[in-house]
């Protein structure tokens, strides 16, 4: 196996950092409440009724 220097490693840590920042921004904007609000009601469209 040969190692790829830097390129992919930087990318994976960059994306990990971006993912953490995105999640933190979403939490600050209270986006999980929106997800919760949708998920606690039966979505008739999702199950093919409405």
């Amino acid at each position, binding site marked *: *196996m040969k190692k790829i220097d830097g390129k992919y490693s930087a990318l994976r840590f960059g994306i990990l950092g971006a993912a953490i920042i*995105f999640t933190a921004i979403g939490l600050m904007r209270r*986006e999980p409440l929106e997800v*919760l609000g949708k*998920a606690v009601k039966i979505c008739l*469209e999702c*199950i093919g*009724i409405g």
Partner: protein
Amino acid sequence: MSGMHRNRISRQRFIQLAAAVLFNGYVAGFQKGRIFTGNSKGICVPVLNCYSCPGALGACPIGSLQTALGGIRRHFPFYVLGMLMLFGVALGRAICGLLCPFGLVQDLLYKIPFRKKKVPEKIDRPARRVKYVILLVMVCILPAFAVTETGITPPYFCKYICPAGTLGGGIPHLLANPQLRQAAGALFGWKTLVLILIAAAGMVIPRPFCRYLCPLGAFYSVFNRFSFYQMHLDSDRCTGCKTCEQVCPMAVEAAKDSNSPECIRCGRCKNACPAHAISSGFSYKQTADRQA
């Protein structure tokens, strides 16, 4: 098939079953025909698991993504996208191979004794791109821009395609609730047809939904090359026997590209390799083993 092979396969199946139970552990929901309403529903699960499934303890990320893009508030989905990126960069498509309940359903369907087929490459290759189109058009573009009179766009993928929603949500609710049975019309007929077609295809070819249609698989495939969980090929040990290709449910040429975007990290190649040339695990240093 060696004894070790059987054990490893059953380990994959054990993880799949445990994940299916973990994500759908609200057993009372199936009995009462209701859904779980606890706070854990605010957390996205990493797999395609309808939040309207009576047993679901978390939220479907694809449904949540469409809600953020096309709901009342209409905003950039920081939270859902951040969660999906975290899952993707950690595991890549191991989520499809090991955790997804609908992946488990397809694996079990393929075990049904039926005439198995190999999809010709000239059909298979372009058809695999369909899932990226679905992700882009039905999950992102249409919910974001195809606004209806109400100002809220429907979750197009969930509404017209998602077989996991029909199987995990629609059918259990219809069985438990007579009022919903009366409300079911042409749309439910369409979604049932989609489910039947995918199930029928699943008996003939392995994982047809994962290969061609799943937008979540399309999203995670982008992370396969650089996720922390990786497949590794020891090219010094590889004899080129192509056993890995023969057992791969996604028809990946593991000896050429063990971290292909199509690889779902189910581990069958690893277990089947007579030379023990394939391994998998978490690594912090990126390695490449692609052969020319």
